[in-house]
């Protein structure tokens, strides 16, 4: 068990280094931070001086090495745009992103599983046809269109929900939460729905397919032959066996919900790390972009690690392999 986790950890570190390296390669092509920092009144001498002081004239490998050395100490530098420490900026905005991600993951899981079961059990009903058709829209419409559409209907026309932002927030230590105020909860609804729609459709279709598969298996037929109640068969036997792959996918999707909330956050002016990243790209705020990409890599690595460990606990074949000293 220990060697397995250690090996996984080592692999994770390599992944993080590769991500940082690729990020740094890309930053060389996104533009020059200096011209947006200095404005039009500056002279060429000012530009050169600032480039020198920021170390942008140094060779690529030196900049990368300096970044890794600092990052290992948790030091990501000062944002070029906002002139505040990057670690602090990301930590301040993380609660917004995490609350949004968990809200939308919950919506996706609950509605995805319920609708998936329903459409599997009644494959030929009218409701199923409607749900399946609408879900196609969910996967095929781009997120920003869904977001703008929801804003238009619920904020502009019906004036029921706020059009942007996070509403009032309450500070619980360093964690700034929007879940404890009415305006915070109201503000969460539209972005959470927007962000959940794709995952919801995915989970629903996965549950439906798995369930249809399981319902055709022999042990379900035997259960029916034994005269067990429909309820016991569907929920006690079929659903339980359906959920194993669903949990895996849902876990991995949580990572991408956190990482790719960028568009939803931009459309709703949601003050999370995604919108911080978008604002930073526009002015080539390299310290923030680098820290964000490393953070996203970390999220994926940690979730994968947890999933791997869960497999290890669930799957006896892996366990035996480890015991024999592999």
């Amino acid at each position, binding site marked *: 068990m220990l060697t397995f986790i250690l090996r996984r950890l080592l692999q994770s570190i390599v992944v993080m280094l590769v991500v940082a390296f690729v990020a740094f390669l890309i930053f060389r*092509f*996104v*533009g*020059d*931070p200096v*011209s*947006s*920092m*200095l*404005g*039009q*009144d*500056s*002279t*060429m*001498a*000012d*530009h050169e001086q*600032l480039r020198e*002081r*920021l170390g942008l004239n140094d060779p690529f490998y030196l900049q990368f090495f300096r970044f890794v050395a600092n990052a290992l100490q948790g030091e990501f*530098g*000062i944002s*070029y*745009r*906002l*002139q*505040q*420490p990057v670690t602090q*900026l990301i930590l301040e905005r993380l609660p917004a992103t995490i609350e949004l991600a968990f809200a939308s993951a919950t919506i996706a899981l609950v509605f995805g599983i319920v609708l998936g079961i329903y459409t599997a059990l009644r494959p030929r009903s009218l409701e199923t046809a409607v749900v399946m058709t609408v879900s196609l829209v969910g996967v095929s419409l781009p997120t920003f269109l869904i977001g*703008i559409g929801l*804003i*238009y209907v619920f*904020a*502009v026309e019906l*004036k029921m929900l*706020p*059009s*942007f*932002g*996070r509403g009032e927030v309450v500070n619980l230590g360093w964690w700034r939460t929007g879940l404890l105020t009415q305006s915070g909860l109201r503000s969460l609804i539209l972005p959470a729905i927007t962000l959940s729609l794709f995952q919801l459709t995915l989970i629903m279709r996965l549950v439906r397919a798995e369930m249809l598969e399981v319902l055709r298996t022999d042990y379900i037929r035997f259960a029916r032959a034994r005269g067990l109640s429909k309820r016991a068969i569907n929920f006690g036997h079929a659903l339980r066996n359906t959920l194993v792959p669903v949990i895996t996918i849902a876990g991995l999707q949580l990572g991408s919900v956190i990482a790719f909330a960028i568009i939803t956050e*931009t*459309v*709703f*002016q949601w*003050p999370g790390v995604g*919108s*911080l990243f*978008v*604002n930073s790209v*526009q*002015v*080539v705020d390299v310290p923030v972009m680098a820290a964000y990409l490393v953070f996203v890599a970390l999220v994926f690595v940690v979730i994968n690690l947890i999933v791997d460990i869960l497999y290890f606990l669930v799957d006896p074949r892996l366990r035996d392999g480890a015991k024999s000293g592999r």
Partner: protein
Amino acid sequence: MHSTLARIASALLVSTALAGAAHAETVRWARASDALTLDPHSQNQGVTHNFNHHIYETLLDRDTDGNLQPRLATEWSVKADDPTVWVFKLREGVKFHDGADFTAEDVVFSLDRARSEGSNMKQLHAEVKEVVAIDDHTVEVRMVGPSPLYPNNITNTFIMDKGWSEANNVVEVQDFAAGETNHAVLNTNGTGPYRLQSREVDVRSVLAAFQDHWAETKPAVTEIVYLPIADNATRIAALLSGDVDIVQDVPVQDIERLSSTAGFKVETGPENRIIYFGYRFGEEPLKSSNIKDSNPFNNPLVLEAMHLVLDRDAIKRVVMRGQSVPAGVATPPFVNGWTAELDAYPAPNVERAKELLAEAGYPDGFTVTLDTPNNRYVNDEAVSTAYVGMLGQIGIKVTLASRPVAEHSPIILANQSDFYLLGWGVPTFDSAYIFNDLVHSKTDKHGTYNVGLYTNPELDAKIVSLGTETDLDKRNATIAEIWKTVQEDRVLLPVHNQVLAYAMKDNITLAVHPENQPLMTDVAFD
């Protein structure tokens, strides 16, 4: 500078004032981006200055017509016996937000800070030799030579409290390159009409009216909630749904719809910003052209043809939806040196342009690459695309290279472009600002944005003379001469001046500010 007593007194005043302000008028003000920092000398950027103008004040200010107005200075003049010294008389009875008195030593401190090494405002004070307090309410700014236009440079240089800055260790401008943070980035103590109540960067900032402000008329707006909303559609939706009251950055395609929507109105007005095309001068062949033995742009006939084929009215009508002021000279009308005569432009004439091109020796045209930003100016990429089509009519085949401004700027500054689109604002409202950076030969101090490397030593001498000429009539005559040469040589190809639009609820009045720096003190309610 400030005693504990004064602080307690002001705290009491503020608390009673807040209790009394039951009929507070709050304005929720949205625009595309947030102020980058509250440190007044750290960034020379319009959005940041606009926000800081509510908290801090400058010696002089500009009204919506662009004229200089007294603010913390009540009078300003060149010293009678020394043309190199500017004398500023300071307003009396002004208080900082913490209760400290505003005096000459604060001005000396702030101007010195603004021209220090780490300041981004230092270019505007490059000609200052020293700043001296004569008495509590008189300051002399001694220049290296006669500087008749220096007052134009200080309308965004904010005055900080010396005592507060020393107490909070912000005497130096933040050196973020060295990884430093600074108290002044998030905290303020100005003399302005509003004081900072709370600030969440990129989310919301709240400002409340400063009860001890010196102005006799109190602003109608007693509380400002400043809300940056990056996405255009969301920003407009926020106004339509009633979540904000004023939207400053309105996309041109929404202007018509908003003004026809009941309950809302749109104010438009010209911005102090000219949009123009520039090209590479000199004998050397262009890198991006199929003509390998000469530079077509170095031929005045070719430039004349390109001028004739640019249909500015069509661009205004189709690309800008009527929201632009077509221009024949590369300066906005606000600027000293602009004349209607210079600004005239010819009706497009494709036949004549073709003839000129043939006469120049390019009967079949030529190819070239046009570099354009796509997120900096209003519909910048669409303006370039339209011009590409127009040039195609006379056989100039243009490849469009469209990039975000962060990638466009390095190409411009490194003189890597053969043909480019750029915009230029003129914060000093004087032509010299345009000549210094766009027309003067490229040196360490001048011609930073002279991308085409135009050079004319005779013109350079005239441009430099503008900086020290104290006889205003003579100076204006020189400006007219320079413009004449610039137009004859077709150094720049102007397209239009941008138009600004602010949208708001229809019970609010707020005029467009030519530098896009509206003050909420100017807001009136019906």
